[in-house]
């Protein structure tokens, strides 16, 4: 386990995506080893460590042993870190669906006469360099961030786990080709790739940014999913199911996927936070989202020239961004601890 970032399977280490993504990958990879660790530590195919991560676990064990999933849920409900981060995320989702619930202006309504003014009644965060209300814009910025984060994560998780899972399951030429392709994507540092790809796109919607994240993000999940499937595949219950004549699709869907999905969930949760940060970074560099869109990255970028006179215009969106990313990373961390059978 100590040698996480070095993966003998790939020619390139996945450090191009930044420290947060490394954290995600190492947390996922540390979970990945639990089936072999569990079956090495106790009788192979022990009921709890390798029990299916799904509803039919209790049925299989005669209703006595709880499944890893419900065990994890019981742990999570008592974990304050999980509760706080889940509340923050629920609040973010709420304000991104109904931003008008806690604001009373349009984020695009600006008054140059009030530019850079500080906090006043009704406008708690003051005004930015263009005289727009910072509070309204910060609230509306959540929508873009959550949209980008959720869509990019869904795309990455589906594409990455399907490709990685199939490659890990079937092995052979397809696996070798996929490993080389992931190496190619890992060789491009993410911010650089974003600058190059998004600078030629003129669309003002969020879709090019999401598309770019899916394009450069899937190898990370695919590597995790591949490793996870390969580990799970060695378990006795998979051999038993195969010996009983289960088809490949049944093996993959009923036996392997439920047990291999935990690392993917953890990595995807943390990755969601990093994609929000990446969107803001790209918008800050001027290649992500374009101005009519309200986004924290754009606001921070617009506020940085006025940092001397109106630091509040920079601090509020930055704070919102940092708390959002932190909430997702903490959530992923808490979920990882809950899913790790070695910790119980």
């Amino acid at each position, binding site marked *: 386990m100590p*040698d996480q970032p070095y993966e003998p399977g790939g*020619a390139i*280490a996945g450090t191009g995506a930044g420290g*947060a993504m490394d*954290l995600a990958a190492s947390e996922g990879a540390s979970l990945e080893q639990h089936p072999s660790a569990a079956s090495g530590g106790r009788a192979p195919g022990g009921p709890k460590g390798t029990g299916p991560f799904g509803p039919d676990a209790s049925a299989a064990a005669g209703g006595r042993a709880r499944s890893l999933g419900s065990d994890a849920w019981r742990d999570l409900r008592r974990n304050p870190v999980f509760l706080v981060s889940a509340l923050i995320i629920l609040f973010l989702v709420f304000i991104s669906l109904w931003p008008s619930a806690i604001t009373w202006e349009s984020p695009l309504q600006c008054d140059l006469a009030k530019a850079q003014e500080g906090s006043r009644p009704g406008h708690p965060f003051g005004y930015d360099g263009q005289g727009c209300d910072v509070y309204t814009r910060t609230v509306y910025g959540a929508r873009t961030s959550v949209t980008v984060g959720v869509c990019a994560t869904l795309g990455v998780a589906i594409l990455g786990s399907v490709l990685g899972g199939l490659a890990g399951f079937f092995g052979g030429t397809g696996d070798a080709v996929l490993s080389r392709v992931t190496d190619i994507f890992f060789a491009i*540092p993410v911010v*650089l790739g974003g600058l190059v790809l998004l600078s030629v796109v003129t669309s003002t919607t969020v879709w090019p940014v999401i598309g770019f994240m899916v394009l450069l993000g899937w190898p990370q999940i695919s590597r995790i999913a591949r490793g996870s499937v390969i580990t799970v595949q060695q378990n006795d219950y998979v051999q038993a199911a195969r010996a009983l004549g289960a088809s490949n699709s049944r093996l993959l869907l009923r036996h392997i996927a439920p047990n291999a999905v935990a690392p993917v969930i953890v990595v995807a949760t943390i990755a969601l936070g990093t994609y929000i940060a990446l969107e803001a970074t790209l918008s800050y560099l001027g*290649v992500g989202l374009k101005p009519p869109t309200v986004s924290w990255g754009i606001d921070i970028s617009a506020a940085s020239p006025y*940092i001397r006179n109106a630091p509040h215009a920079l601090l509020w969106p930055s704070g919102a961004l940092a708390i959002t990313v932190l909430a997702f990373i903490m959530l992923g961390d808490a979920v990882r601890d809950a899913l790790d059978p070695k910790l119980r």
Partner: protein
Amino acid sequence: MGRYVIRRLLQMIPVFIGATLLIFLMVNVMGDPVAGLCGDRQCDPATAAQLKKEFGLDRPVWQQYLTYMGNVFTGDFGTAFNGQPVTELMATAFPVTIRLTIVAILFEIVIGITLGVVTGLRRGRPVDTGVLLVTLVVISVPTFVTGLLLQLLLGVEWGWIKPSVSSAATFDELIVPGLVLASVSLAYVTRLTRTSIAENKRSDYVRTAIAKGLPRHRVITRHLLRNSLIPVVTFIGTDIGALMGGAIVTERIFNIHGVGFQLYQGILRQNTQTVVGFVTVLVLVFLVANLLVDLLYAVLDPRIRYA
């Protein structure tokens, strides 16, 4: 070992070709390489066609790619928007970014490993929990926010540093930018060292070393650190390439005229040759760093023998 090196070098070739081809396609197929040559206005069709013919852009993409790569390997990266060869820009930009990266790596080694060792040896104590929480916060705050905040606090409010770096970009001016660039990796190095130390602390060889009566500092430096730092060293090695590529954000905040600045100018002025040239070199640096780390791994860890 020799065969392993050759195998790894051969493995690098398809990765290099694939990565550069990907970047080449992004720029040349999705964008319009001649658009930047006409300034802000649209090129008129006849001029655009003439330019395309002149630069060979009317030929198939694979031919363009081969021509470009052929030129790159003879040291010709093309010309920037102001008529300067791209190689000249590289000669001025890379030393600055390399200095910045060195500062960042030093921070990672000194602060990251120290904090990691301290927390790893005191696992579960308040100092451990505190540092872990701080690393999580540092990892969560995007680099550009950290940079802007430090610039605001140290440069504007307290006046400890100059908010922007002069074009000379000496080492002492790069201390704060280097810290900003290193921040996220620094936090990760701390966590990595902590996990590694805490795990190896329970191992048999450490117990033997303590049992035979070695002083504590000798057990830590000779036995524990030597074995625990292997994954950390490999991470820092592969991080070099990532830091040089990620420096673009830090360089923008502190106005450092390094690789990121030139890349950014190239993108603003739609000069594809600057962009593709710099990115190609950065990808190459990343690949070489990865290769060296893999070889270093074999040297550091005698258990690993490459056939």
